[in-house]
Structures are given as C-alpha cells and as structure tokens.
C-alpha cells in the first residue's frame, strides 16, 4: 500500500495579506504525471511553492510522502525546478557547477564531491541533451538551455518526485522537445511528476491528469483540456494569451 506522494488538503495561502489560494485540495499519486494549469495569477506557482515549503500555508495541511511538510527531512526524494528567467548569478558558473547543486541533498557539509556525484551530474546533463555544454559558462547559454540546466540540476539528485514550475516558459522549440523527451524517459521509469504550465505544447501526450486553477481555486481535475483551435488564437502576446480553452 502506498499513499499519495503529494497530498494537499484544504490549503489556503495569503501573500502580503492578499488571499492567493483558498481551500485547495490536490493529490498526486505514485507514478502519476499531473499538469497544474491556469492563467497568470491563478495561484498555480504559489501552490507548488507551498508544496515545497517556500510559501507558508495559513490553513490546511501539506504532506509529502506521508510526512507533514514541517517535519519532512528526506529532501533527496524530491526534485524541484523553480521558475527562473535566468539561472545566472553575480559570478560566472559552469553548467556542471550548477547541476552539482542537485547532489547536495545527498551530501553532508565538508564532504567532497564523490565519483557517484560526478556520474549523476553527467547522466542528468545527458538526459536533457546538454552533456556537450557541461564546461560552458551558464551566461553563454540561451534561456531555453539554461532552463534545461535547471531541470538537470533537479534530476541529478535522482528524485522520486519531480516538481517543475513553468519549465517551458519562453523556451525555444528544440529545448522544449529535448525537455519533453527527458520527462518521458523519467515518467517511464516511474518518476512522479507535478508540472506547472501555461501551455502544454510537446508535453501534452505525457500528461495523465490536469488540475486547473482559477482565482486560487481548483476548477477542473481530470483529463487534460483540449487545445483551442488556431482560429481562436489571439495575437496580443498579453496575459490573455494562454492558449488553453479552459483558462480564459
């Protein structure tokens, strides 16, 4: 018997006094591939941030692998890809150095990088098709390639569940495809995936279940919504440009 990997029950979140989520329920079972959809401001990013403990919950409870989040310590089982426009910081860093951060959940302070660490980093870079850029500086990569590096960082820890916050936002087509291929392989190996997305794109065939948020509440939990026809596609590039029929 295995309980849900992620169990969100009646969760409400307020940010700066403004309610962002109200009484949200979400369960993700072992091996499931769940997409969390919604327009900008619907609270989907806040929900995954609450799940990984980056945003305090003001009501309800979050359990990860059956353990309340507050006492969860087994972070190596969880891989997280935050929403970032860029992965760079104030000092140059190579692709390998950033992906190696993903091994820290399996390391202890003062411990050196092991051979297992190096092999896991290389395997993670191969999975996202970036092995040939391992020694490059992050700042010289495109936005899509940097996003793939952040995904590799989450994979390097060999997690059982992968939580991704808008990993394909602003990503070019080859990167999106490389990323979809990597996720397909992982899902095939039994990794549980919770993915926040604006548009599913090449990921659509992988999604088993979609949860749609609107104004901080779940309005749909079931099969992924069908893509809208091209005729409805508005060329405004504004917040209404969400490409998902259920979201507008």
């Amino acid at each position, binding site marked *: 018997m295995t309980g849900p990997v992620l169990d969100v029950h009646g969760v409400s979140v307020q940010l700066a006094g403004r309610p962002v989520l109200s009484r949200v329920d979400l369960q993700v079972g072992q091996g499931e591939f769940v997409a969390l959809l919604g327009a900008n401001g619907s609270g989907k990013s806040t929900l995954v941030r609450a799940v*990984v*403990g*980056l945003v305090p919950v003001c009501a309800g409870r979050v359990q990860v692998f059956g353990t309340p989040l507050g006492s969860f*310590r087994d*972070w*190596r089982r*969880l891989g*997280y890809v*935050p929403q*970032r*426009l860029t*992965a760079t*910081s*104030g*000092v*140059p*860093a*190579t692709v390998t*150095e*950033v992906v*190696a*951060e*993903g091994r*820290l*959940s399996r*390391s202890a*302070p*003062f411990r050196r*990088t092991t051979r297992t660490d190096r092999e896991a980093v290389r395997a993670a870079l191969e999975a996202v098709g970036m092995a040939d850029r391992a*020694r*490059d*500086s992050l700042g*010289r990569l*495109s*936005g*899509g*390639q940097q996003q793939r590096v952040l995904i590799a*960082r989450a994979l390097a*820890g060999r997690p059982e569940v992968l939580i991704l916050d808008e990993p394909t*936002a*602003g*990503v*070019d*087509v*080859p990167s999106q495809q490389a990323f979809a291929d990597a996720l397909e392989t992982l899902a095939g190996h039994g990794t549980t995936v919770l993915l926040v997305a604006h*548009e599913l*794109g090449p990921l659509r065939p992988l999604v088993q279940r979609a949860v749609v948020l609107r104004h901080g509440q779940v309005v749909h939990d079931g099969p992924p919504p069908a893509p809208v026809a*091209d005729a409805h*596609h508005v*060329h405004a*590039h504004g917040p209404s440009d969400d*490409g998902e029929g259920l979201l507008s």
Partner: protein
Amino acid sequence: MTMFGYDFMQRALVGAVLTGLAAPAVGTYLVQRRQALIGDGIGHVALTGVALGLLTGAFPVLTAMIVATAGAVTIEVVRMRGRASGDVALAMLFYGGIAGGVLLTGLAGNSAATLNTYLFGSLTTVSPTDLWVIAGLALVVLVLALSLRRQLFAVCHDEEYARVAGLRVPVYNVLLAVMAALTVTTAMRVVGLLLVSALMVVPVATAQQLTRSFRTTLLLAMGLGVVVSSAGVVLSYYVDVAPGASIVVIAIAGFVATACLGGALGRRRTTMPELAEGELGVHVAAHDHEQVHTHGEDCGHDAVRHGDHVDYLHEGHRHAQHVDHYDEH
C-alpha cells in the same frame, strides 16, 4: 637596510598576504549573491568596536571583531526578514556605526591620526599580537570558504533551491555574515575599515572577466588579492601613504587593465548579441517559408536573445517562435 629588514614591514606583508587571501574568498560569495556592498557596511559598524576598545583600554581588534560580528548577524537577519523598511534600517546601522566610532574615539582622547590608521590601514601599527589574531581569523575564514564551497555556492546562487535541497539556509546565511565580519576584522589593520570592502569585491570583479567557472573565479580572485595587497604594502612603504589607499588603487588599476584587455579579446569571440528592451517589434505572424524549417541552436540562422526568448535572424528580419508558427519581430 631593505624594507624587508624591518620587523614592522615583515608583519605588514604577512598581514597583507593573509588579508589578500581571505577577503576575496568571502567576497566571491557576496558578489555572487549581489551583496557587494555589505562588507562596507560591516566595516562601518566595526569602527564602533574599535572605538570601544580604545575607550575601555581593551584590545581594539577583539572588540572590533565582536561588534562587527554582531552587526553582520543583524544585517543578515534584517535581509532574511525581507521587509521593505530593511533598507533604511541598514542605512541607520551603517551611519550609526561610523558616527559612534568617531564619537567614542574622541571621548577616549585619541587623535584623528589614530582613527586614520583603522580607517585606511597602517604599516607601522600591526603589532605581533595583531598578526596572530589576523592569522587565526584568516585561517578560519579560508577553511570555511573552501571546505563549504558547494553549500555556500548553492545558497548564494539560488537560495530557494538550496532550501528545497534540504540545506539549512539560515545557518549558512549567518555563517557567511560571520565570515564577512571576521574578514573585515582581519583586513582592518592592513587596508582599513573604509576600504576593506574593495579588497573583497575588486579582485572578484577582475577575475570574473577572465573565467567561466565559480571555482576558478574564487581561486583567481584569491591570487589577485595576494598580489594587489602585497604590491600595495610595498608601494605604501616607498611613497608613504596609507596602505589601504595604495592597495585599492592597484586593485582598480588591475580591473581596468583586465577590462580593456578582455574587451579587445571579447570582440573577437562570437557572442549572442542581446536586443535592448524597447526594441520589441510589432508581432506579425511570419510568412510561410518557415513551415519547412524549425529554428534552433544549429539551424544556420543567427540567434539573438530578445527579452525572455530567442529570435532568429532570417532574411533581414527576426523570427520568434510562437506556439506553432513564427512571429516576425
């Protein structure tokens, strides 16, 4: 007698080498998290510590270390709380630190000259006891900065990710603050409190023009730190100025020289040009020749970074991928 024959010069040089190693080691992490000016703030606060030592007759390096550490931890706590008023709170702490230092020094009956040796460093006032303290603190800072490199790198690179990876981020944040305070105390006798931050930041800024990895940036910055602080001490001996001034001027000269050199080399490299904000063109669905072609890394069209996506130069205009077609930008 050469300058190396003088005991005070030997002590000043040893102090300069230790400071030159430790300051950029901590500085690299501070620059990484875009807190280049935090060392300056800690230096201001430490001045009150020095003055307390002068007033009470205690050992000023020790009192400076205690007050600087308390100040640095306060700064870090204010930062972690993330309040909008935090910025003003830090400003008050910094100015209060320097004003308190000047006030207490005056009360202690010390002259401006004494204060100057702490503000801008001094060759002749590094006592043997000072040197032992400097060596001990520098060693602690270096061991922590190098042996916790992976953890500190992760925390400074992406604090939220580090938290989800299970790192005790507040512990590392406070540790880094304490390391910065110890470095300020270490560097105080040689470069002085007002210029210590430059030795933490300028070698890093110089190094990162030439490097592509964090590790080499850290090591090169430490190497440069040793070179500029030793050269500064030697220059200070010959021209009789405060060593802090000569060290920082040499460090900045090195930065400018590297920037000119790097600029000349960089123009020969192929870099992805970045489009300025405001150049966002009208979004028109592209003509249909792209149906037979998918733009990508190696499609033969030059890539231009454009805000959050990549455009591809295509027959004199730019293509941006948008769902199932390309927009012309």
